[in-house]
């Protein structure tokens, strides 16, 4: 660690204070609660000094100085509120407003506009300019980005965040002086990653989004912070919701409160791909197949039918005749509940999910080598990062953002080994391109097998490059090692073994929002929650007060095999589309009784006998574990009448099957309970928890649909999950560790790992039903302008 910088003494508005040398005056003022206004200054981006709003008076300097570009100096005496300063601010605002249209009543930014706030605070309501304002019509630059030139105040924030932050460089400034204008890279349109950072960072309403513009006003929405439902990076997103005929409509997502690991970062999916929730094709009623056709049914009918059939199969054909497939997008509590439901209520270990990374092998490697996992925060702080496989720009946008900004702001070292020339190579200290599928051989080479090098060389990499990289890596302490699903099984152990002695931390990349959670919660036929083998079932049996079935269950492919052979009589699929993901034959699902819980008519749902319409992440509470192991809490934001959370559906089926719900959900046990914290905008009259509670006269107690009771149990059973619940409820991330309960050998099935291969603009089933993502892709394919709304 470098020595902490020297403290210097400064005086601001008569207040004496100290700040580390090098601190910008504007930041030093903020530290002692003095606000210096500014438009162009943005922490984390390069300095611009363009807006002149932060001019302050510094003693012994003849002219006013910009506080955003002036570092503090010993003995500096500053006045931020002198008459001269106040006058200059007012004048600057007048100039900014000279050409600014006064269309606040219809502007998207109205109510959350920095220019409005400044005008209110510093007063420049009177305009002395009588010239005609120069008007330009609004332009559409992409399905997502609209530009309203007259509103622009030329702070250059969008230009900088697009270039420095995103490394896209799609925005620039053309012309000069008064005529300056923000310009897109393709002259009249944008070709970019459509992340929308430029829109959210715009202090005024010059850049607006295709999905939100002219829809509502900020004060008409409720805002609920929750976890993004798309990739596994665990960005927080603030969901703006509004009452509608069918519940609570989601109007926008952003992260302007800079909460979470991602700060203000979100990708196109996190920001705009929430629209599938209101897709016309969403299933909002339980459907029962009669004579080959789906007929709408009531929840009572559907749940009764499912419970009866499950009971019948268990009694007649035995529990081994039922299979359960869980989801990568349901909460930890739902996944945990589902495996408990399979094991205790149905009595089978036939439970699996779509695996996108070999997490069991990772857990094994970590515990064998006493290594640790890295959180997404570590990626921004680490002195060096090694990335093997994957393309984070496409598949893990926040990870790519963290790496880029670590390199840019902390000058960290960054090593890439990939079979493709991925975009992140532009930040790399060293980039080594290896043949496709050679990632495992590279790990072999790292472990000391020099013969492997011969098979890795191609145009991009020489023997010398490889040796250089290995030597460099051996010299990196506190390295963060990140790898994609290209590495599985024993290769992961070898990699961990190579880097662990240097105090390295690791990240194993899985694809969906809660892929890691699904694995951690034990959606496996041969593993219990926390990657415990059946040899360690005693702990679970004690907690659950029931026996775990002894027989190892069938994995997903075996279940389909058993269905084909007529041995599987019922299949319960929760939020998953195995038919498409594993390219399985849907025809085999004709014989068994198939129940699918989903939002849309997927390839698997078509083959179902009963479809139960499910809520998705933004419509429920619970927790997600990011691919790094960062645990965060979801809050209910949107609501669609007549769909239910997977949690509630599972509990209801169990109840109808005659199972004691108290054994399944330990509500009322322990001291911690959800008193409404997780329910966001839904607390109160529309709150299903309270409706249930009221109906049973149990208000002061907790409900069986309360995921926090299950979280309690998870925390008791999985040592790595014993983190502060208060922190989770407060909206913070808590890093979980892969702590092994016992050192038994964990079975790993690399052949079952099927990466989703999603890009920046796809997101499994959800992406298929997102109008924004589809219009962005259509536009990229055809080059034609497509409106997102």
């Amino acid at each position, binding site marked *: 660690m470098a020595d902490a910088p020297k403290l210097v003494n400064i005086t601001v508005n008569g207040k004496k204070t100290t700040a580390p040398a090098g601190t910008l005056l504007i930041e030093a003022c903020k530290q002692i609660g003095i606000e210096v206004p500014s438009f162009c200054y943005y922490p984390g981006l390069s300095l611009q000094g363009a807006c002149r709003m932060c001019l302050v008076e510094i003693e012994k300097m003849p002219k006013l100085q910009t506080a955003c570009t002036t570092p503090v100096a010993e003995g500096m005496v500053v006045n931020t509120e002198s008459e001269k300063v106040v006058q200059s601010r007012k004048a600057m605002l007048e100039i900014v407003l000279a050409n600014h249209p006064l269309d606040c009543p219809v502007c998207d930014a109205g109510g959350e506009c920095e220019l409005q706030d400044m005008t209110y605070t510093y007063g420049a309501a009177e305009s002395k300019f009588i010239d005609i304002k120069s008007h330009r019509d609004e332009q559409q630059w992409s399905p997502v980005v609209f530009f309203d030139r007259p509103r622009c105040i030329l702070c250059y924030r969008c230009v900088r965040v697009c270039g420095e932050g995103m490394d896209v*460089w*799609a*925005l*620039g*400034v*053309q*012309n*000069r002086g008064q005529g300056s204008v923000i*310009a*897109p*890279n393709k*002259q009249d349109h944008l070709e970019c990653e459509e992340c929308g950072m430029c829109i959210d960072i715009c202090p005024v309403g010059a850049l607006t989004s295709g999905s939100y513009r002219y829809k509502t006003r900020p004060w008409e929405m409720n805002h609920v912070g929750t976890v993004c439902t798309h990739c596994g990076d665990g960005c927080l997103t603030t969901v703006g919701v509004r009452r509608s005929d069918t519940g609570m409509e989601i109007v926008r997502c952003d992260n302007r409160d800079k909460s979470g690991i991602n700060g203000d970062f979100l990708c196109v999916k996190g920001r705009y791909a929430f629209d599938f929730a209101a897709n016309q094709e969403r299933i909002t009623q339980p459907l029962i197949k009669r004579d080959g056709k789906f007929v709408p049914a009531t929840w009572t009918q559907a749940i009764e039918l499912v419970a009866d059939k499950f009971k019948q199969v268990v009694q007649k054909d035995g529990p081994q005749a039922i299979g359960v497939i869980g989801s990568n997008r349901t909460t930890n509590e739902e996944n945990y509940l589902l495996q408990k439901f399979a094991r205790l209520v149905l009595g089978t270990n036939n439970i699996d999910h779509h695996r996108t990374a070999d997490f069991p092998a990772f857990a094994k490697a970590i515990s064998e080598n006493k290594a640790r996992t890295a959180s997404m925060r570590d990626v921004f702080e680490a002195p060096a990062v090694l990335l093997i496989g994957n393309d984070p720009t496409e598949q893990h946008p926040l990870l790519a953002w963290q790496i880029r900004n670590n390199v840019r702001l902390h000058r960290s070292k960054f090593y890439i080994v990939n079979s493709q020339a991925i975009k992140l190579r532009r930040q790399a200290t060293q980039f080594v391109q290896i043949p496709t599928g050679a990632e495992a051989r590279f790990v072999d080479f790292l472990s000391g097998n020099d013969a492997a090098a011969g098979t890795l060389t191609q145009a991009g990499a020489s023997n010398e490059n490889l040796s250089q990289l290995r030597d460099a890596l051996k010299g990196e302490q506190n390295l963060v090692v990140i790898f994609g699903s290209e590495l599985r099984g024993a290769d992961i152990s070898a990699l961990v073994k190579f880097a662990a002695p240097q105090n390295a931390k690791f990240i194993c990349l899985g694809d969906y929002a809660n892929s890691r959670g699904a694995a951690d919660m034990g959606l496996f036929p041969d593993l219990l929650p926390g990657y415990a083998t059946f040899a360690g079932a005693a702990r679970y049996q004690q907690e659950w007060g029931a026996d775990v079935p002894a027989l190892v269950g069938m994995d997903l492919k075996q279940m389909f095999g058993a269905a084909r052979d007529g041995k599987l009589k019922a299949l319960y699929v929760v939020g998953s589309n195995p038919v498409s993901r594993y390219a399985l034959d849907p025809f085999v699902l004709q014989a068994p009784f198939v129940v699918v819980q989903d939002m849309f008519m997927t390839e698997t749902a078509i083959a179902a006998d009963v479809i139960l319409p499910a809520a998705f992440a933004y419509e429920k509470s619970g927790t997600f574990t990011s691919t790094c192991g960062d645990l965060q809490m979801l809050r209910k934001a949107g609501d669609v009448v007549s769909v239910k959370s997977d949690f509630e559906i599972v509990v209801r089926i169990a109840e109808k099957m005659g199972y004691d719900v108290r054994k399944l959900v330990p509500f009322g046990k322990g001291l911690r309970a959800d008193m409404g914290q997780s329910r966001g905008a839904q607390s109160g009259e529309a709150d299903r928890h309270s409706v249930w509670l009221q109906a049973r006269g149990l208000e002061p107690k907790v409900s069986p649909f309360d995921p926090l009771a299950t979280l309690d149990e998870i925390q008791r059973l999985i040592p790595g999950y014993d983190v502060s619940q208060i922190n989770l409820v407060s909206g913070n991330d808590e890093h979980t560790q892969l702590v092994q309960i016992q050192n038994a050998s964990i079975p790993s099935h690399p052949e079952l790992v099927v990466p989703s291969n999603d890009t920046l603009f796809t997101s499994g089933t959800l992406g298929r039903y997102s109008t924004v993502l589809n219009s962005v892709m259509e536009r990229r394919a055809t080059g034609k302008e497509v409106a997102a709304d």
Partner: protein
Amino acid sequence: MNFSDQLEARFADMLGHYPTKRSVLVPFLLYTQDELGYLTDEAIEEIAQRLDLTALEVRNVISYYSMLRTRPAGKYNVQVCTNICCLLRGGEEILEHARKKLGVAVNKGISEDGVFSVEEVECIGACSWAPAMQVNYDFHENLTEAKVDEILESYRKKAQQ
């Protein structure tokens, strides 16, 4: 795309004159414009690629300088100054006269024979001899309408040779 041998040689030489590659941008744009008449989309892409810049960055720079253009000009680009000194001594009238005489709009279009275009420019540093104009790189000073006619005629003849 390929530039002329002469321009290629110049580019190779210029690279050594500056501490960073991108510093070559403005002079090279100017030389390219001299060769091509204006900065074509193709030339912009090529220059961006050679200097490790985006085409957008190159366009930003072009738009900043009024001497750089992305639309064709006539063989002789008549640039009339209308800044304060020239204005006081009839610069506006000279501009209007040249425009009418050549039958083209100011700042856009080329005369029918392709020889002339007319541009209104800021100060060209010839205030002592106002009103002044610049045709390509040649200065013409102490202008009167008659003198402008004479000058334009000489260029027309030159073009026909």
